[in-house]
């Protein structure tokens, strides 16, 4: 995909059509010869041929273990793998030693939870929010139970964002870590990170951003947001599965305990004790996912070429259109912020029959699937949040750079049919 220089001149629809050509999965048919309408991007995105080729290229030409090998393949592979750290760093304004490759966001969040566990004592507080994905909730439940620390939660405001007033109340001098989602994978809320970052640091607390849903979709700079940690997943941003990143401030990482021990994270070992390697390798134990990491670098470069502002705009326009069209019906209930500027490309909703009876999201997604449309239905790994919405589950449409207005029209048409069928 080569983007012509003049941004504004270029029609966005034409751009999206060009992007789609990079994604081989859209060339195939699903089920009974149907086009694939893929609207489950918050779960995982599709992969452009550049990324798939990057994997193939690595395993065909350069496959080798890294760091220690004094031979050609190992030298090339080591260089490529380090370069991938730099590329991912470039996306968020960080340097290579602050980029730890994990297998996914969940590992990054757990790494921080386990490292923190070593420093916690009874009475210490960990502050989360009411919007947590299970991966940013359960690790902290566990370490709180083990250490006697207390979990506290930032409430959600009426505008469906993390409430700054609540944050000001629950974050105190006893707070050791504030960890919250930049963007909710259920509500689509883009939360006020700068402010919460400031409040956390005023109280000398560490501040972690769960960036699983934000880094793939909006421009982010760690220099501005100033988190101590930022976790995200490659597979939600064009890269293969099995690779993700935990960004950590170098000064914080130096003092932090690793999650995994062994292999290349070690500098020197006796039978009794060991010392650790330099950053970021201290946190990458065992043989890393070299191929996945390199392909992650390729994915990030694809996004940088496209420009994250443009990514945001594509999704913004799609979301705007979808919500507008949904509001024209009388049987769709949309969750999340009213203000489109505080919303990413994630739309949770329910539909009802003409008597106002909920059509269960599992039925909705099965029926959409019969028409080739992939959405997600359920509690989206955020069960407590879903319960607070007083619904057993929601449907969720989530966009990425290759989605089109036509796909929205088609999906709304099928939703209308389902509504009718159940009425």
């Amino acid at each position, binding site marked *: 995909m080569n983007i012509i220089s003049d941004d504004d001149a270029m029609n966005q629809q034409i751009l999206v059509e060009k992007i789609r050509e990079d994604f081989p999965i859209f060339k195939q048919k699903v089920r009974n010869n149907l086009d694939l309408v893929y609207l489950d991007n918050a779960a995982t995105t599709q992969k452009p041929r550049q990324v798939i080729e990057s994997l193939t290229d690595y395993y065909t030409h350069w496959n080798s273990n890294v760091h220690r090998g004094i031979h050609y393949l190992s030298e090339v592979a080591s260089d490529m793998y380090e370069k991938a750290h730099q590329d991912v760093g470039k996306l968020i304004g960080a340097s290579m030693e602050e980029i730890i490759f994990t297998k996914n966001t969940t590992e990054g969040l757990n790494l921080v939870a386990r490292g923190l566990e070593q420093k916690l004592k009874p009475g210490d507080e960990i502050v989360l929010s009411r919007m947590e994905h299970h991966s940013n909730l359960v690790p902290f439940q566990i370490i709180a139970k083990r250490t006697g620390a207390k979990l506290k939660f930032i409430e959600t405001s009426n505008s469906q964002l993390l409430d700054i007033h609540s944050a000001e109340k629950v974050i105190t001098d006893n707070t050791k870590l504030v960890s919250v989602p930049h963007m909710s994978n259920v509500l689509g809320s883009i939360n006020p990170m700068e402010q919460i970052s400031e409040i956390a640091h005023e109280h000398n607390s560490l501040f972690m951003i769960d960036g699983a849903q934000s880094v793939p979709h909006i421009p982010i700079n760690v220099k501005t947001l100033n988190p101590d940690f930022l976790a995200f997943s490659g597979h939600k941003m064009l890269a293969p599965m099995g690779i993700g990143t935990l960004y950590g401030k170098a000064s914080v990482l130096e003092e932090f305990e690793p999650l995994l021990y062994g292999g290349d994270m070690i500098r020197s070992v006796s039978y009794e004790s060991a010392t650790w390697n330099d950053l970021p390798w201290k946190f990458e134990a065992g043989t890393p996912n070299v191929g996945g990491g390199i392909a992650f670098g390729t994915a990030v470069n694809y996004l940088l070429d496209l420009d994250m502002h443009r990514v945001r705009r594509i999704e913004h326009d799609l979301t705007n259109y979808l919500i507008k069209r949904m509001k024209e019906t009388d049987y769709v209930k949309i969750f999340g912020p009213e203000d489109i500027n505080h919303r990413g490309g994630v739309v949770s909703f329910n539909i009802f029959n003409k008597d106002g009876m909920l059509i*269960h999201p599992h*039925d909705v997604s*099965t029926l959409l699937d*019969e028409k080739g449309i992939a959405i997600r239905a359920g509690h989206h790994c955020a069960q407590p949040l879903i319960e607070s919405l007083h619904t*057993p*589950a929601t449907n969720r449409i989530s966009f990425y750079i290759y989605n089109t207005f036509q796909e929205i029209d088609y999906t709304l048409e099928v939703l209308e049919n389902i509504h009718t069928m*159940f009425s």
Partner: protein
Amino acid sequence: MDIYRENIIEHYKNPLNHHPMEDATLVDEDLNPLCGDRIKIWVKLDGSTETVESMTFQGNGCAISQATTSMLTEVVPGMSIDEVESISQEDIRELVGVSLSPVRLKCALLGIKVVQAALLKYRANQIKNGE
């Protein structure tokens, strides 16, 4: 829209035997934590013949779980305990009459799971009481 044959939607919108039972022998409840589907059942047994006399249910969840349980309330009465215990996944697939993916199959199986669990407890109690 093959899998949602009118039959299922009809059962979903107007479920059969969808109420509590005052004089039930057995009452039990379960949920599918992945979906939030929830089913509560009431069963009246004829103790002498070890046969199900009647069954009712309440619950909420997807059309598949609710409709399948509604269908069960028609099928199960008249069966012996052993017969109910031997109802298989395949039997349920046939009852529903539409193809089900693994995730959705769990929805279809929720109703029978609750009934079989209740009967198992009943049997265990019989043994404990030396009957």
